[in-house]
């Protein structure tokens, strides 16, 4: 049983975080009605009916998708480190810091170049 305690603690932490986030958003966020908010979520555009001519996507989606992949991959690399960070010791910490800082540079660039604004 002892072996599974960390997993149990992790589960409780994850659940608590989810409850906290949803509750915090409910209490602190503004509540403005918008019909689009109640539609099924499908990456921003109406899935049906199919638009005439196949539908053209704004190129902005590409930027968002690229950004998503950058940070997604960052997480992918964080996981193995999180599992073995104590063995990787100070070497692993420095390597991960360098990695995170480089990704942060990307973030700073995109933010300053207004890549995060939709219009």
């Amino acid at each position: 049983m002892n072996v599974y305690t960390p997993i149990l603690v992790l589960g409780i932490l994850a659940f608590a975080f989810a409850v906290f986030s949803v509750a915090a958003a409910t209490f602190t966020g503004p509540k403005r009605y918008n019909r689009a908010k109640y539609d099924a979520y499908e990456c921003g555009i109406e899935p049906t009916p199919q638009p005439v001519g196949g539908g053209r996507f704004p190129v902005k989606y590409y930027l968002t998708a690229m950004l998503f992949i950058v940070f997604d991959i960052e997480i992918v690399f964080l996981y193995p480190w999180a599992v073995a960070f104590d063995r990787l010791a100070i070497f692993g910490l420095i390597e991960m810091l360098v990695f995170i800082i480089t990704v942060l540079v990307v973030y700073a660039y995109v933010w300053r170049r207004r890549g995060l604004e939709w219009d």
Partner: protein
Amino acid sequence: MNILAAVGIEVPFTLPIVDYNAIAPLLILLGAGVVSVLVEAMLPRGSRRFIQLFIVFGALVAALAWIFTITGVRVITAEGAIAIDGPALVMQGAILVLAILGALLMAERSIDPSGDAFAARASALPGSEDEKQFTARGYLQTEVWPLFLFAVSGMVLFVSANDLLLMFVALEVMSLPLYLLAGMARRRRLLSQEAALKYFLLGAFSSAFFIYGVALVYGYAASTQLPAIASVLTAKPGQTSLALIGMALILVGLLFKVAAVPFHQWTPDVYQGAPTAVTGFMAATVKIAAFGALMRVLYVAFGGMRWDWVPMMWIIAILTMLVGSIIAISQSDIKRMLAYSSIAQAGFILVGVIAASPAGLAGALFYLIAYGFTTIGAFAVISMVRDESGEATNLSKWAGLGRKSPFVGSVFALFMLALAGIPLTSGFIGKFSVFAAAIASGDTWLVIVAVVASIIAAFFYVRVIVVMFFTEPGPQTASVEVPSVFTTIALAAGATVTLVLGILPQPVLELVSNADLFIR
């Protein structure tokens, strides 16, 4: 407490050993690239150019200086992924020097009356209202510099990658910025964007071949490290079919980068469409980087399969020399002509690669260095020859140019003679050392074909000289713009090295022969 240990899984782990001293030039360049991105993001537009130029030249000079302090280092580091050896250091040094010249060309702002050679905003649609507005506002962008630094970092890593996976990463770090740089020309936007798209699509395709080959070779050798592949090849000499197919696919990816026939189709379009400064930089440095990786893969990993790849490389070398030389004759655009010339030159260098001897390696290294300086100088001249619509790249506009501007005409004639391989220029020594090495290795027939191809190639190089000097200048003859100190330095360096390597080649010949072989 470690989670894996908690559930009873013991994973042995040792820290990797990295020789930071040996890879410091690479780290300097990558660090400078990151800082350069931050400069683009954080600083106001007006102050960026000065700081970017400071970073770029500072990083290139610092990396070059560091290489001079580690000339004796022969080490495989980063858990076998990076090999810093004689040829790698020579090529890294050559790439850095040529990158300095390329950066000088790209920094030029006196030739084009509307600013520099790069589009005011490359993302605007060609001919659109947006683009006209950005151009009218006189926007000059400095985003080429981070791209430039990352491309150079990729090349520096590419020539010392000792692991096929790392080699693939270096290939992409080198290529992706180059695809973008090719699409940034201020004038003839459509041609430039076409060049970038073609280069990107075909480049991505060739990268896919490369990585597929890596997968097959891994299936054979259970390792992606070049020396490990070599030792498996000696241990299991009988069952090499997977390794053969894998090697062929890897070679497709690498031969694409050196622009060997039949993987050369992108070259003329990209050389023509890219901004001339970028073309010069790319033509000189990518050739060195790609040949470095090609030779390392062939010699270190597949040296034991020499009798399998030599016939294939024979055919490719002969095709490359002949197709490059013959098609160049029919070109009327000087940039396209130099593109086909670069294909033919790749064929000549392949002759040295096929020799697979210390002399062949030294010859190929010398040829690459000589070719790099000559090419970058030739493109510097092309960027200066203009008429009212921009660069005058059509050969008809060059008629009489040598009489109108004798000095620039003579310098360009020197470059043409060097590319043709006339004695007293660097091109002659390069061809001589490569051909001599091939004859010593018993490839006499290949050398005979190469000499025939050289004679064909000499025709179109000399034709440019004839057009420049033996025609009266007419009203449509382009004029030579006076460049700023940037292009002047690059041009002077290109011409000086071309001449000095032709008359006094001994120091560089010693440098490349003392570079030893690739370490395994």
